[in-house]
């Protein structure tokens, strides 16, 4: 109305202006479209910890164990908070938020007593609550009391029973728990196909009952649901019986049932050829009934082909299937590629010498660009893609470039969400790094390692061992100290049984690759590392243990029974947390590192510790450490100590006795007694070489 009044009265029109003016059309976008497009600007950066964690050096979890603990405890906290809100809901009704946020409000909790009335509304409510068994009980009650229930309700209940296998559906786990589902869910870790259908369960009972009164339309729904349920829970024989019954009674099979049928073909037919025949038969049937296949259909066929491992026709059939899929206008999803890879590489040894993997990567990168730089979840099988492709690229093809390409692809955008749980992620990175450590050079591998560890991937003990191996093979000396701090961060330097070998391996690394060209700086750093190890795992000799025991006994005498028990418990606990077992090998390495940094006291205390506890330590002190300790003591003019060492060398009967004697011999400050001792040692030794040394 206003616009009619407003004339174009501006008298300053110089140019001819068109009377009307069209606004450009607003481009339609969803409410979150801008956020989503901004999201595509951000790529994963290996330095940031996961969003769950606080970003501060003190609080970032680095080892796999810490991450698991933190994320699960956060999930547990959320659950506890939700529980309190639901339990004491009367305290949480004050709503400050405008508009109101429903998920911050207490939920309705399921109260059995509300649902005893046997009628249809109760049934619907129970079904909404996912309490299917209870719903079935109420249903039975309705039948007993002869209360009328509409067909839609009955069939809805029946569908639910088939879908959930006559049981209440499991609660959906929070995402943090879901990530660790493989470890948390003990059953079926190997993912075997097991028949879990409940025979003579509620679903079957209801089926029998409804069969009698169903009209032909309802029969379609009935039979299809039942067959789908049977297939889903892997009861293939009964399902085939039902399918035959359907055919006899001319009940049409719908797409979902066909999909399940194709997926379960490997349970129905034994040999590969018969399986393929079977599938072709049913696909022709589908064509006759003009049912269009969808993505799920094709993925099911691929799945069955994959279960025919080592089938010669497999790859050819798979490729022709891909063509068929494209003709139907269905874009292959990540799940399709996952199955295809497994068909082409059925086990670890066989690799068909095709270039299928790079081709798949090309295809995917093209699709990625086309889809506006994002992939959607289209099928449940998509979760296996990255795991499969990395597995096969590393184990069968052994192609370093391909592996890196796959990794780059996985890191772009939000593709990392296609690795659905922790176990798969571990295996993905394990495979990748195993390959890279064996076949690639440090200039490439170390940056890749640093970009991923420790925030995205916390390596397991095997990979760490391989990594240490890699570093030692390539002699990357500058990295050793950094490696030590990484090991601490990743949680491999602690008291556990497995991790001891890491420490030993690491020390061996420090010592083997040794030599004269080490700078002072590095020597000091290595000695510091040795001291850190000693600090973390303090030496307690047997005598100390005795002392502690005595003290405890004294205390016990003063106490009463109850407190006494507590003391015993603590003592037992201490025993269970076994203290770090030193071995002779470990001690010798530590001695060697410390002596090179001229730290006599520390190394001597280790030396003494060894001899005090010789009976409980495995291995002996080795030659290198003893020689280096000897050299240090001679340099510092501690002749007694030196002689002690030589005597011990003699006891161990090491070859280096001759060198030891020689060294000591050359030293000027030996007085008469010392030389006497030297001579006695020489006499007592059983080594020939020792006797050859000329003693002054």
């Amino acid at each position, binding site marked *: *109305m*206003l616009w009619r*009044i*407003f*004339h*174009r*009265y*501006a*008298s*300053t*029109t110089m140019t001819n*202006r*068109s009377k009307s*003016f*069209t*606004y*450009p*059309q*607003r*481009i339609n*976008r969803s409410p979150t*479209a*801008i956020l989503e*497009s*901004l999201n*595509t*600007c*951000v*790529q*994963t*950066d290996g*330095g*940031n910890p996961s969003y769950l964690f606080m*970003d*501060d*050096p*003190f609080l*970032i979890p*680095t080892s796999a164990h*810490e991450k698991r603990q933190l994320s699960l405890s956060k999930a547990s906290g959320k659950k506890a908070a939700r529980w309190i809100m639901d339990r004491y809901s009367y305290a949480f009704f004050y709503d*400050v*938020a*405008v*508009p109101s*946020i429903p998920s911050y409000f207490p939920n309705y909790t399921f109260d059995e007593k509300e649902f005893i009335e046997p009628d249809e509304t109760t049934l619907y409510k129970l079904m909404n609550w996912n309490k299917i068994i209870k719903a079935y009980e109420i249903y039975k009650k309705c039948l007993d009391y002869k209360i009328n229930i509409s067909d839609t309700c009955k069939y809805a209940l029946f569908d639910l029973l088939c879908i959930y296998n006559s049981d209440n559906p499991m609660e959906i786990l929070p995402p943090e728990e879901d990530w660790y589902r493989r470890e948390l869910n003990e059953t079926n870790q190997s993912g075997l196909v097991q028949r879990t259908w409940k025979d003579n369960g509620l679903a079957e009972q209801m089926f029998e009952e409804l069969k009698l009164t169903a009209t032909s339309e309802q029969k379609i729904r009935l039979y299809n649901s039942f067959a789908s349920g049977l297939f889903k829970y892997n009861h293939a024989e009964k399902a085939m019986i039902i399918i035959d019954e359907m055919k006899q009674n001319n009940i049409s099979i719908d797409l979902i049932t066909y999909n399940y049928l194709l997926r379960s073909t490997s349970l129905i037919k034994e040999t590969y050829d018969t399986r393929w025949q079977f599938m072709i038969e049913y696909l022709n049937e589908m064509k006759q009934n003009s049912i269009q296949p969808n993505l799920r259909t094709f993925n099911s066929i691929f799945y069955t082909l994959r279960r025919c491992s080592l089938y010669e026709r497999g790859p050819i059939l798979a490729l022709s299937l891909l063509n068929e899929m494209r003709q139907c206008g269905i874009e292959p999803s990540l799940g399709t590629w996952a199955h295809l890879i497994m068909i082409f590489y059925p086990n670890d040894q066989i690799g068909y010498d095709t270039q299928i993997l790079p081709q798949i990567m090309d295809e995917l990168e093209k699709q990625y660009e086309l889809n506006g730089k994002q992939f959607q979840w289209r099928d449940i099988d998509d979760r296996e893609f990255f795991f499969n492709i990395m597995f096969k690229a590393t184990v069968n093809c052994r192609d370093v470039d391909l592996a890196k390409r796959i990794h780059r692809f996985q890191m772009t955008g939000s593709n990392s969400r296609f690795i659905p749980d922790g176990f798969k992620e571990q295996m993905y990175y394990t495979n990748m790094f195993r390959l890279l450590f064996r076949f690639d050079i440090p200039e490439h591998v170390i940056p890749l390692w*640093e970009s991923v560890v420790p925030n995205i991937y916390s390596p397991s003990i095997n990979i760490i061992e391989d990594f240490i191996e890699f570093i030692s093979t390539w002699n990357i000396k500058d990295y050793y100290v950094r490696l030590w*701090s990484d090991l*601490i*961060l990743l949680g491999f330097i602690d008291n556990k049984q497995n991790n001891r070998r890491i420490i030993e391996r690491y020390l061996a690394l420090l010592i083997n690759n040794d030599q004269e060209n080490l700078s002072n700086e590095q020597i000091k750093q290595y000695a510091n590392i040795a001291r850190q190890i000693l600090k973390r795992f303090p030496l307690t000799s047997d005598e100390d243990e005795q002392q502690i025991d005595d003290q405890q006994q004294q*205390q016990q005498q*003063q*106490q*009463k029974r*109850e*407190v006494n028990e*507590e003391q015993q*418990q*603590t003592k037992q*606990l201490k025993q269970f*947390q076994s203290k770090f077992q030193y071995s002779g090998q470990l001690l010798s390495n530590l001695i060697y590192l410390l002596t090179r940094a001229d730290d006599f006291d520390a190394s001597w205390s280790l030396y003494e510790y060894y001899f005090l506890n010789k009976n409980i330590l495995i291995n002996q002190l080795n030659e290198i450490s003893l020689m280096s300790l000897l050299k240090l003591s001679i340099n510092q003019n501690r002749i007694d100590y030196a002689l002690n060492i030589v005597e011990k060398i003699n006891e161990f009967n090491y070859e280096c006795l001759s060198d030891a004697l020689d060294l000591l011999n050359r030293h000027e400050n030996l007085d008469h007694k010392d030389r006497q001792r030297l001579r006695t040692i020489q006499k007592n030794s059983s080594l020939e070489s020792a006797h050859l040394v000329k003693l002054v």
Partner: protein
Amino acid sequence: MLSFVRTFRQAQRSTGPKSQIGEFRVLQLTQSKGSGSGPMKKRGKLKFKEVPPPRYLRMSTDQDWTNVWPTATTFKQSVVPLPITQGYVSSDNENKGLPVEKYANAELMKIPNFLHLTPNHIKKHCAAIKKYCTPWPEELNSDEACEYYLPIEITTYDYLNSTPSIRDSRARVVKFQFKLTQLEFDEHARDKFVRLAGQKYNADKDELTLIADKCPYRKQNYDYAQYLLTALYFESWKTENWEKDRTKNDWQTYYWDKSPSRTRLLDILKASEKDPKSVLDDNKKLIERYRASISRVQDEGVENELKNLTDYKNDVLMLYNLKL
């Protein structure tokens, strides 16, 4: 790993000499001072894991900052690779006279930082959003064009608070602004409109501003402003009966044609001429000049007062053929 051992405090049985049968056992609820658990147990020192060095030490100089700091967050000193300081030290005793570093610097954490909006960020964001933008219409290529096509300017305000509620009462205000040249007026209507508008009309810019905030909702205020504008406009075109009672004191400008000065002048001229009808035509120029100068004197007020008055004096003298 910490292991906690709970020590119980329980009522203890009598520890005195073995009580004989029949003797009353004394219940001891608390432990007496002497029989504690030996020397006081020191609370074990909590063992924390090693703190790794901050990660800015490991950042390469050619990394992509847009991935490291994608959104607005509080200042994290372990992530920012710059040696930033903030804080005032008043003497050499505080912090050894040095500016305060970024480690645990609360001031740096309190203020907003714009590390999430570096030029690279903005470039990327713009590239990402561009597809939702439409081009600027070509017709609007100058200010006048904008005024021509879009004569009225409606302003509303939106407020964002860091609270769960999105409401803010200041957001109900609606402001309408436009120039009066956009509307069709005759003289009376314009004058009436301006008088009705009062303070809302800005004579320098010839602009009317209507601010509506009476109602609680923005839509209501918008509708009210529309209604107000319509009412003003149509009212200004109406002439009421009482407007006839206008006197010379109410005129907004000096209408010489209606003024008593004209009648007087014509009377004077007619008196001196023989032919009354042709007075106007004969002395047209002089009358015009007289008219112009007296209108200027009346209208322009204080500006140019001296000039106007001298012009008037000259015109009057010319009119009466007087020479001074």
